[in-house]
């Protein structure tokens, strides 16, 4: 065990894992975090807490993680390289692990130009791979990036994100391999809609034996409406929403579109359960936390396994 987190235990016991996602509020109301967390309690192994997602300022990720811990949920602390240099990143992981946080997800972070403060200066002292390597070094070698010894090393289960749909496609699996080489213990993918492309991606990953080195959790985000599908297709960078998905949603009555979206998510999860190399799903029900149970239960993934 690297960190002994619930997520790590469930994955290493060979169970099909489920993680959720929670975006902290654009304010300091702890109650909002507790409220969203309540919907996810007991239905996922752990919950990703986003870090100024889409470069919009929100309650700090570590603080929202702490609130989750108080509520009896396990957080995955997301950290982006956009907002902090190596000093702050290392210091924050020490602080986070001191508070009891055991999972981290290392990300480059969306560029601030399309966020809430486009005039800000970004950092990118490290990139996401260098951040993975930094945390692995702190955990395994018990050293800072400058090779000085840590007094108390962070025990942390290290995660990375993978977007199988960004360009160039031919390099995507290589980049996944690089993230594993850098230090990723688990990987969560971008929301998947193009199943054909994802099957091809996973085939390449399995051919390279990557699934034996890392736990891959497939990203699932239910579509709430045709409007959301169109928005994702057009405006979210690196998102691949095939026409067929939009067409299927359009095929049902407007009031039934959400239900259809959930049904589609469940069908996807059913396929992921059988797909070679997939160790679990990452359910990102964005601002829809109260519907997460419906999806996870619908996919036959409840109750969640208890592993000690």
């Amino acid at each position, binding site marked *: 065990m690297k960190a002994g987190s619930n997520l790590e235990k469930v994955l290493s016991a060979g169970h099909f894992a489920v993680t959720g996602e929670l975006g902290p509020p654009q304010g300091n109301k702890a109650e909002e975090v507790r409220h969203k967390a309540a919907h996810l309690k007991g239905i996922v192994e752990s919950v990703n807490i986003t870090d100024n997602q889409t470069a919009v300022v929100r309650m700090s990720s570590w603080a929202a993680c702490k609130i989750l811990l108080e509520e009896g949920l396990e957080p995955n602390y997301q950290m982006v390289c956009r907002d902090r240099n*190596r000093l702050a990143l290392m210091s924050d992981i020490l602080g986070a692990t001191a508070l009891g946080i055991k999972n981290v997800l290392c990300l480059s972070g969306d560029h601030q130009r399309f966020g809430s403060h486009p005039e800000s200066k970004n950092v990118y002292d490290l990139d996401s791979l*260098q951040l993975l*390597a930094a945390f692995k070094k702190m955990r395994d070698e018990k050293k800072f990036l400058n090779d000085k010894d840590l007094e108390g090393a962070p025990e942390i289960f290290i995660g990375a994100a993978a*977007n199988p749909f*960004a*360009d160039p496609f031919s390099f995507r699996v290589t980049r996944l391999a*690089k993230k594993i*080489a850098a230090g990723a213990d688990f990987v969560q993918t971008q929301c998947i809609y193009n199943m054909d492309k994802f099957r091809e991606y996973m085939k390449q990953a399995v051919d390279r034996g990557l699934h034996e080195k890392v736990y891959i959790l497939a990203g699932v985000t239910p579509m709430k409406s045709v409007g959301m599908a169109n928005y994702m297709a057009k405006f979210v960078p690196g998102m691949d929403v095939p026409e067929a998905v939009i067409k299927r949603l359009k095929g049902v009555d407007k009031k039934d579109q959400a239900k259809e979206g959930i049904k589609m998510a469940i069908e996807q999860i059913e396929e992921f359960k059988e797909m070679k190399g997939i160790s679990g799903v990452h359910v990102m029900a964005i601002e829809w936390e109260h519907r997460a149970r419906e999806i996870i239960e619908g996919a036959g993934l409840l109750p969640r396994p208890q592993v000690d």
Partner: protein
Amino acid sequence: MIVGDSKPLEEILEMIKGRDKVLVLGCRGCVTVCNVGGEKEVGILATALRIARKKAGQPPTVDGMTLERQCDPEYIEELAEVAGDYDAIISIACGVGPQFVAERYPEAAVFPGINTTFIGGALEHGVWAERCQSCGNCLVHNFGGLCPIARCSKSLMNGPCGGSAKGNCEISPEVPCVWHQIVEKMEKMGRLQELEKVWPNKNWLTSRDGGPRKRVREDLKQ
């Protein structure tokens, strides 16, 4: 070269408000090549300022002068006779120019007439693009001759990130994803394997992050 953009006339007029005698000072270096601060642009800016002065019924004394370079004390010296004659000196060299003039002539009121934008080159006549961030430790040969530090919006050494789509950067479809280009170039060169390497964290000490930089060449110093 160092590439710049003219400041809006309104901004320049506001800077020199109430200053009667004005000198527009050009530079025959980079800013001449990128058509923003050479002799020709000195003429245009000086004429435009004179029109503005005449229109406002003010004395139109706006002269022009172009130095060989404004980043060299030798040429800044050429101003010695005239610097005192002006109430404002507008340097249309890169950011080095107004500073060198102000350092040499402490009494002079020096104003920047252009915004220095980047170190780059001309893609075609009238189009320039950034190529270098002067990080102080060039690595472009590892990336097919393309710089990920200056040309990736996130300066990723292990790109491309998940925001790259259709060969473009997530910040804008107008900005090509340099990592997409790096992968394609290395693939064409049969060197894709080299990109499997995980680049360790960069030493930014040689970059601006290490503080203002200065270089001393003992072999040249007198």
